[in-house]
């Protein structure tokens, strides 16, 4: 017998459940006075560099019904392609940009809106630049393990065409599931479909 590796194993996931708002967005859920404000609701301030955008996201179930109890977190680079994270070793990100946002989907419409900036390009492992993208993490009642995906931008056709991650999607008809449509000057609409012909490409990262 060889030596033991003595690794631990990751704790198993359990669904966030219907009351995830109590824990992660208590003020949104009507529990005020415990925290000053919910974490992740403001990603930008007056001094943030870059193009201001709004990302309007929904999560749709297998019948096409928007989830009204989902929680979405996003993670992205600043306008220079740098993340506000200690693990970011390429340089200091914009101190006026959090890189991270968290929103509950609206209990009536199922939509949530992130006020953020358009991210810069981030290198892939081999140095090629990835197209501008936002990483999404979705949890809700009925989702047993948080879902990872990415949002790309419809008006970045050239960058999307050379993106090494999009290039790995075997069924090219599924690529558009990751591309948010532009709405007006500065908004993007991103529908995440959990099932069906247009099921969003989810990642095992």
């Amino acid at each position, binding site marked *: 017998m060889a030596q033991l590796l*003595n690794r*631990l*194993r*990751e*704790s*198993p*996931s*359990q669904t*966030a*459940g*219907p*009351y*995830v708002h*109590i*824990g*992660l967005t*208590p003020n949104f*859920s*009507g*529990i005020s006075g*415990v925290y000053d404000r919910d*974490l992740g609701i403001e990603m930008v301030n007056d001094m943030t560099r870059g193009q201001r955008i709004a990302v309007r996201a929904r999560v749709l*179930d*297998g019948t096409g019904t928007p989830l009204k109890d989902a929680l979405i977190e996003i993670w*992205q*680079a600043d306008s220079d392609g740098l*993340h*506000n*994270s200690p*693990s970011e*070793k*390429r340089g200091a990100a914009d101190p006026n940009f*959090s*890189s*991270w946002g968290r929103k509950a989907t609206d*209990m009536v419409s199922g939509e949530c809106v992130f006020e953020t900036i358009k991210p810069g390009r*981030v290198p892939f*492992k*081999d*140095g090629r630049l990835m197209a501008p993208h936002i*990483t999404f*993490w979705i949890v809700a*009642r*009925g*989702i*047993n*393990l*948080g879902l990872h995906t*990415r949002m790309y931008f419809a008006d970045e056709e050239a960058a999307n065409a050379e993106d090494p*991650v999009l290039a790995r*999607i075997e069924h090219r008809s*599924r690529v558009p599931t990751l591309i948010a449509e532009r709405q007006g000057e500065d908004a993007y609409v991103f529908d995440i479909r*959990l*099932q069906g012909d247009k*099921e*969003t490409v*989810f*990642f*095992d*990262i």
Partner: protein
Amino acid sequence: MASDPKPETGAFFQRDRDRHPPAFTPAYKTSVLRSPQKALLSLDNTISEITGPVFGHDILGELDNDLIHNFARPGESAIGERIIVYGRVLDERGKGVPGALLEFWQANAGGRYRHKKEGYIAALDPNFGGCGRTITDEDGNYTFRTIKPGAYPWPNGVNDWRPAHIHFSVFGHGFAQRLITQMYFEGDPLIWLCPIVRTIPDKAAIETLIAALDMQATIPMDARAYKFDIVLRGRRSSLFENRLEGN
């Protein structure tokens, strides 16, 4: 984090999906229409997944880790069995994870959540909100004070009950480590009847979500203690990897 002068930048170990519940678990009915059906796209981590938000202790209020008092009127406290929950956040290499933000939420002692969509007949406790948070210390340790939540019925089967549990949301150092799970209590017979618990196929994996009663950490005449360790994904060393981007 200031106390972590050399943050690690390696990719995370591949997630062992046999450890987790599959997406489609029909005995938990809500999963049926909310479970992706196509294969996931496997992606060795890029900088977008290796990095992640890290939160400073300055975000924490004095009572954030005290659910007995953080919603209560001055001089009053939540009703229920007083407990301490403590443990460590580790990664798969066995290293403590410092600076990990933990957020938790739970029902009150009667099994009732403070939420507009909650309809269980058990009474609300005016002194209990049900949320708290803390950040692990340099060795990955955390602790908080609360009351033991009650079990409650939920609409799935006609007579399904959730065992007493506390929800945990955990940040590590990379966005790929993001995890939500639930903590159960040693000795609760409802654990093994619950369709949500049973979405996890491996009994040994379920047992890692059951907190142990720890009488040595109990505060005499005050609160019992439960120990609950959480393991996040480990990460590879980046020392010998080709880094073509020239960093």
